[in-house]
Each structure stands twice: as structure tokens, then as C-alpha cells.
């Protein structure tokens, strides 16, 4: 007979928080199950029918009792709600300082892209004790990134960027599952998260196999796709300057103001006419079908890197 595990390993800073709430709910549930079962069994024996034509006694329901057993579950429910929401807040807000990694889901594999250029498939190496932020999208259908040992999960959706984060607390190898049904080999879409000591991680990174950093890949693509002919750094191009654009507010021709985040840059590449920057013509061609999701990620990373560069133009 195979062994019988009853509890998952805790390997991230989230795990303890989720488990504490879980144990609270388990205790409350166990209390009510035992209470109801005990009452039913006790009544069952105490008030069993003894004579054939017997009827039950008339019991006048007490309003106080009804209110009590309405208000107590309500109160307990609200405690669970606030506690759960609190944990969810932590889960959905990455800390300020993170190690960023990109992930693309595709039937049926996980592809990872480190900033330094390493790519991995179905295996992700990360250092222990450091907050890691993943930005993910899908090339086809919805997938879901699930690492039970980290108590972490988020859907990876085509056309959107999902961010999720974790801080691993224990070195080791952990399951990565796809948790959203995605077709034939859904159950084969599994991978491993390898958590390493920081020094080992550095060694692993240096061991490379990369094709230059993500930024440099993006830069090369920027030239190859001829983006550079319009988005000239000197401000003389037919498109807006991209330096410093990432994270800033952008005025559009239709008067809206949007924040230039990952999703905005992705959209600008794939359907440029959706959000045209004020002062420019909608002449940019679409790159839909020309760039893969991974190439998009490197372009985003490149645009991000243009942030701190010295601007030598007057036009803002």
C-alpha cells in the first residue's frame, strides 16, 4: 500500500498564513459537525417512537434561540471573511523588491524566461529567501499556475498579464501544476520549481545557456522589427519616444489617460490603433502574428529598461 500523506509541505512565506486560517476553519467545522451529529444521535435515541400512534409534543420555537443561531454563524462567517481577505491581500500584493521572471503557458508546457536570458521549460530555478514575482500570459487557452507547497495559484490567461509572487523558505524541488483544465495533456502540464541556496542560484545563472539578457534580446528585436525607425530616441521619429514611458501616465488622442504597464505595451504592439498617444497619427502597423508571447516579453523588458536613460531631447 502506498504511503498516506495528510498535509502538504510548507515552503513559502504564504504557506503558514494560509494554513493557520485553514486550521481555524477546520476547528470551527469540526465543532459544528460534532455538535449536529451528537444532537441528532442523542435526540434519535431519547425521542424514538415508542408507540404506534404517538405524535410529537408541541414545541413553541423560541425567537431568542432562532436569533442566537443566526447571529453566531453570521459572526463566525465575518471573522472568516476578514481573515481570508487579509491573507488574500498579502497574496495579491508583491513586495517592492522582487526578482522578476516571466512565464508563458502553452498547451502543454510552461516556458520561463529569466531576465538574464536563461530560458527553461517546465523547470524553474529560484533562490531561497527572496521574493520572486512572476508575470505570466498564455499563448492559447487559460492555464493556471499552481504550486501547492507555496499555497499559490493564479490563472494564466491569453491576452492578459497575470502577476503572482512567492518567497520560498525551504530549498528543494516542488510540484508545479496546471490547475485550469486546458485540453488533452492537461494533467501532463506539470513542472518543478527548484529552490536553491542563493550561491547555488548564482552559479546556476552563470552556467548560462542564455542568449544574452532579456533586455538585450528585446533591443535586438526592436531593431530587427524596425521599431526603431519610428520610435527614435532623438524625438525626430513618427512615433513617441519610449524612454521613460514605462510606468508613466500617457495621454491618448481620445482624451483618456492610461498607465503604460505591461498590458499597455503588449496592446500597443499587437493592436496599435486601440490606444493612440495624443499628438500622433495611427500609422503604426500591427505586429500581431509577427511576435511570439516570449518576444513580447523581451520587448516589454527592453522598454522597461529605457527608464533611467538620459534624454537628449527637448520634446517631452
Amino acid at each position, binding site marked *: 500500500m*502506498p*504511503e498516506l*500523506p495528510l*498535509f*502538504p509541505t510548507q515552503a513559502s512565506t504564504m504557506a503558514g*498564513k*494560509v494554513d493557520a*486560517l*485553514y486550521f481555524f476553519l477546520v476547528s470551527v*467545522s469540526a465543532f*459544528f*459537525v460534532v455538535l*449536529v*451529529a451528537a444532537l*441528532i444521535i442523542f435526540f*434519535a435515541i431519547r*425521542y*424514538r417512537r415508542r408507540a404506534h*400512534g*404517538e*405524535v*410529537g*409534543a*408541541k*414545541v413553541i420555537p423560541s425567537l431568542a*434561540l*432562532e436569533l442566537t*443561531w*443566526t447571529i453566531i454563524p453570521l459572526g463566525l*462567517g*465575518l471573522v*472568516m*471573511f476578514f*481573515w*481570508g481577505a487579509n*491573507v*488574500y491581500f498579502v*497574496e*495579491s500584493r508583491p513586495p517592492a523588491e522582487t526578482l522578476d521572471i516571466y512565464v508563458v503557458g502553452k498547451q502543454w508546457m510552461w516556458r520561463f524566461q529569466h531576465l538574464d536570458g536563461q530560458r527553461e521549460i517546465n523547470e524553474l530555478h529560484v533562490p531561497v529567501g527572496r521574493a520572486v514575482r512572476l508575470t505570466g500570459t498564455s499563448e492559447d487557452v*487559460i492555464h*493556471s499556475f*499552481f504550486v501547492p507547497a507555496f499555497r499559490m*495559484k*493564479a*490563472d494564466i*490567461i*491569453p*491576452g*492578459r498579464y497575470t502577476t503572482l509572487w512567492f518567497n520560498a523558505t525551504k530549498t528543494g524541488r516542488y510540484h508545479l*501544476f*496546471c*490547475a*485550469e*483544465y*486546458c*485540453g*488533452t495533456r*492537461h*494533467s*501532463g502540464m506539470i513542472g518543478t520549481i527548484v529552490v536553491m541556496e542563493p550561491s547555488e542560484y548564482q552559479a546556476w545563472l552563470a552556467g548560462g545557456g542564455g542568449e544574452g539578457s532579456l533586455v538585450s534580446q528585446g533591443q535586438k528585436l526592436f531593431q530587427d522589427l524596425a521599431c526603431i525607425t519610428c520610435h527614435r530616441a532623438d524625438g525626430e521619429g513618427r512615433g513617441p519616444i519610449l524612454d521613460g514611458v514605462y510606468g508613466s501616465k500617457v495621454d491618448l488622442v481620445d482624451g483618456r489617460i492610461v498607465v503604460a504597464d505591461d498590458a499597455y505595451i503588449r496592446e500597443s504592439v499587437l493592436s496599435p490603433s486601440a490606444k493612440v498617444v495624443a499628438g500622433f497619427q495611427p500609422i503604426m502597423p500591427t505586429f500581431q502574428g509577427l511576435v511570439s508571447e516570449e518576444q513580447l516579453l523581451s520587448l516589454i523588458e527592453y522598454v522597461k529598461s529605457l527608464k533611467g536613460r538620459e534624454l537628449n531631447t527637448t520634446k517631452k
Partner: protein
Amino acid sequence: MDTDTLALPRTHYLNAEFGLASWLLTTDHKRIGLLFLGSISMFFVLGGIFAGMIRLELLTPPGDLVSDDTYNKLFTMHGIVMIFMFLIPSIPSVMGNFFVPIMIGARDLAFPRLNLLSWYIFMIGGCFTLYAIVTGGVDTGWTFYTPFSTMASTSNVMAAAVGIFIMGFSSILTGLNFIVTIHTMRAPGMTWFRMPLFLWAMYATSLINVLGTPVLAITIVSVALERAFHLGIFDPAYGGDPLLFQHLFWFYSHPAVYIMILPSMGIVSELIAAFSRKNIFGYTFVAFSSLAIAVFGFLVWGHHMFVAGMSVYGAMIFSVLSFLVAVPSAVKVFNWTATLYKGSVSYQTPMLYALGFIGLFTIGGLTGLFLASLGIDVHVTDTYFVVAHFHYIMVGGALMGYLGGLHYWWPKMTGRMYPDLWGRVAAVVTFLGFNLTFFPQFILGYLGMPRRYHAYPPEFQALNVLSTAGASVMGIGYLMPAIYLFWSLKYGPIAGPNPWGAKGLEWTTPSPPPTFNFDETPVVTEPAYAYDTVEKKLA
């Protein structure tokens, strides 16, 4: 029971007319109820066979019994058949059709022909879905999530979707018919607050059917259009939004859970009262909690999407609302339990199913709180924790109530009793088998086993073996009623009009009832469950 003095009534709805046409063209709500009983029982067997194959496949980690495609089709068709072709129609279409008119003292439903039509619509829709199954199956999961269902799936999505679309109209018609009937056809003296709680539950369910099902229809039409013409509703490649589908789908499908469970709660209220010979503790609370559940059930669909990229504040609102709808359910459990207090409690078969219902529904409901808690949901959603939770509610709750009702009203429907000892054994076996099947899945889910997996890492095996073992026990539990109920049709002792000594208009007419239910319209003079007025010499 002095059975020897009893005989079946000379004419009743079953022998009033003979021949196939007298069934296929009948407008008698009781016969239509039996038509539904026959159809959905066959669908239940079909869904059960799929379930058995799923469980067998999961006995071992590598997934060696069927191919991955076959497995995906199995759980999809299991889900579609069980939900749309069994659970949603089950209690309303069988017990509702049969008993709503009788329990309010009416001769039939308000629109008898519409009622027959709803059976035909159901069967036509069912045929489409069966066609999808025999011509290769569907592999989208019963939830049809886009863009998988609109672009990636290679299977028979269209036929299955058309089938579900058509079957939806059957629910709408049945719902309308019940609402009108309950409003307009109550016997003299049957005020709203003298109505048995089953009728309150049917009323609330009908509201959901009428308001919610059209949304499902719209959703399915959109999926079909998207698949055929790539309109860009859901598929981001054409500018659509994949999450729009989920919002539309769950806007119907969350309330649909209440379509399955509310009728069952109604039946359980009947059973607890009848077998404790007592008024339900807090009748009005129970009646209004049905309505409250029906109304608030429309406001919590978002709790299926906490990890699907919803804003943090949106998620908080859906979470808190989910906790609020849980309260009326908790109230019902306490009320049922308190009804036993100072009752005269007997443990015949229907009562055992009812008590089993309370146990399983309590566990199912409490684990719903885990899913409503945002922090925990992130970890357990889309795992076996969810599979266990919805089986506790839908199988442990809805199905136990259905079986309890079937055993309770069987003598009324057929005029004959079944062997009560076998009934009790079946109820206990089902209860034990059920827990052995689905309790390990909570643990599996918290350990992290995702749902819809055809192969899994070896450390999950022990719990899967337990679960499969439980499934075979449960299978036996379902097989037994099939055998002794059939047996009873011919050999069962004559039941007489009121074998349980229960209150309610349905027990005042012969078993089986005559075609028009009552020889003369009954007049109601007391509340439902007025057992305190019963003479001790009863039965």
C-alpha cells in the same frame, strides 16, 4: 399496519387508460412525472457509468486504463449528464410534477399541455447531447470555459451545447407552470403559510429557473456563434474577453446549484416533520430562508473566479456575500435538528435518507466556507477539494433528498410498499460509501491534487485508492433501491392511503391517486404538519 384489510383502489391514474399513446399524449401531471422519472433514471445510470470509469482510471497514478482524451471526455460527459440531465430536472420534474398539484389540493397543474411539452423538449435536448456523446464525446469540461471551447477543443461541442440550450427551455416551462399553479390553484383554506415547505422550496426553485436559465441560453448561443464565426466575444485573438464567458456562465450556474439543492431541502423538511410527527421548528424561518437563498444566490457567482484575475475589491465583495448566503443554510440545519427535539421519531427508510442528508449537507456547506475564504480559496480552488465539496452538496445533498423523497412518496405513486429493511440498509450503505469516496478528496485537494487530472504523482495514490473503494460501496448502495423498488411494483404489500401516518393533502387521497387526484376538492383548515391535532388512535 393492517395491510391485510387494504386493497388498491379500483381505478387510479395508472390503470385509467392503457396503451403507449395514453402515456405519450397524457396531460396528467402524475404520468408526466413518471415519464421524467424513467428518463432521468436512465441518464443517472449513464452518468454513473462514466463516474465509475473515472474512479477506476484514478486507481493508479499513471493513467493506464483509458487515454487522456477519453478521460477528458469521460469527466465532461459525467458532469454534463449528471448536472443538466439528472440533477437539475430531478426533483422538480419528478416529485414536483407529481406532488405540487396534489399537495395544494388541485386537479392538475395550471398548464397541463405545456407540462407535457416540457418533457418532449427535455427529451429532444437530451437526444442532442446523447448524439454528441455517441459521435465522439465532448472534452471541454461541463463548464465549457472559453477560449478552450471556442477554439481549441476538437470535440463535439456544438451538439452538446445545443442539447443543453434546448433542455433549458424545459426548466423554464416547468418553473413557470409551478409559479402559476401555486399562485392560482390552491385549495380553499390553503393559505401561503399553510403550505407544506416542499412547496415553498419548489416556488423558490422555479423563480431561479425562470430568471436564471435564459442567461445560460444566451451564453450558449454566444459560444456557438463564436465557434462558428469568430465574432470576438470571448477569444482574445479576435479582441474578445475570456473572462466574460465565466461571468455569464456562473451567473446561471451558481444559482443552478440552488436549483439542485433547494428542492432537496424542501423534501427533507417534509420527511423530518413526518417522521418526528411534529411541526417543523421555525416554519416561517425555513420558508423564508428558501426565498432568501434563491435571491441572494444570484449575487455570489464571482466566488468561482477568485484566481481568474478579478480585482481585489471585487473578490472581497463576492466573498462577503458568499458568507451571507451561507447563514440561511446553517439556520435550516439547526431548525431540522431542533425539530427532532421532543418528537416521536421513527427511523424508516426516508428518515434515514433525510438524516444522511443533514450530515452530508452540513459537511458540504461548511467546506463551502473554506472556498468563500479568499486566502484559502486561492490554494484549494480547481483541486479535489472542490470536487469533494460539490459532491457533498450535489450528491450528498440533492441526491440524498431525492432518494428520500422517492422512498417517502413511492407508496403514494405506486400504491405499494417496498421492504423497509432493505431500504434502511441501502441508505446506510450509501451514506458510508459516500463518505469513503469523497472525504479523502478533501485531503487530496489540500495536498494539491488538481481536478480533471487523468494521471497524477504517486504520492496521491493512497487517498485515490480509498476514494475508488468508497465508490464501489456507494455504487452498491444505489443499486439496491433499483432492485427492491422494481420488485415492489409487483410484490410489494399494498400501502393504503397513508402508510406513514403523515399529514398533508397527498395522504388523504387513495394510493395511487385517481386521475383527478381528489374525488372532491379538499378544504384546508389547519397549518401544515398540525400533528398536535391528531388523535392518539391514528394509524
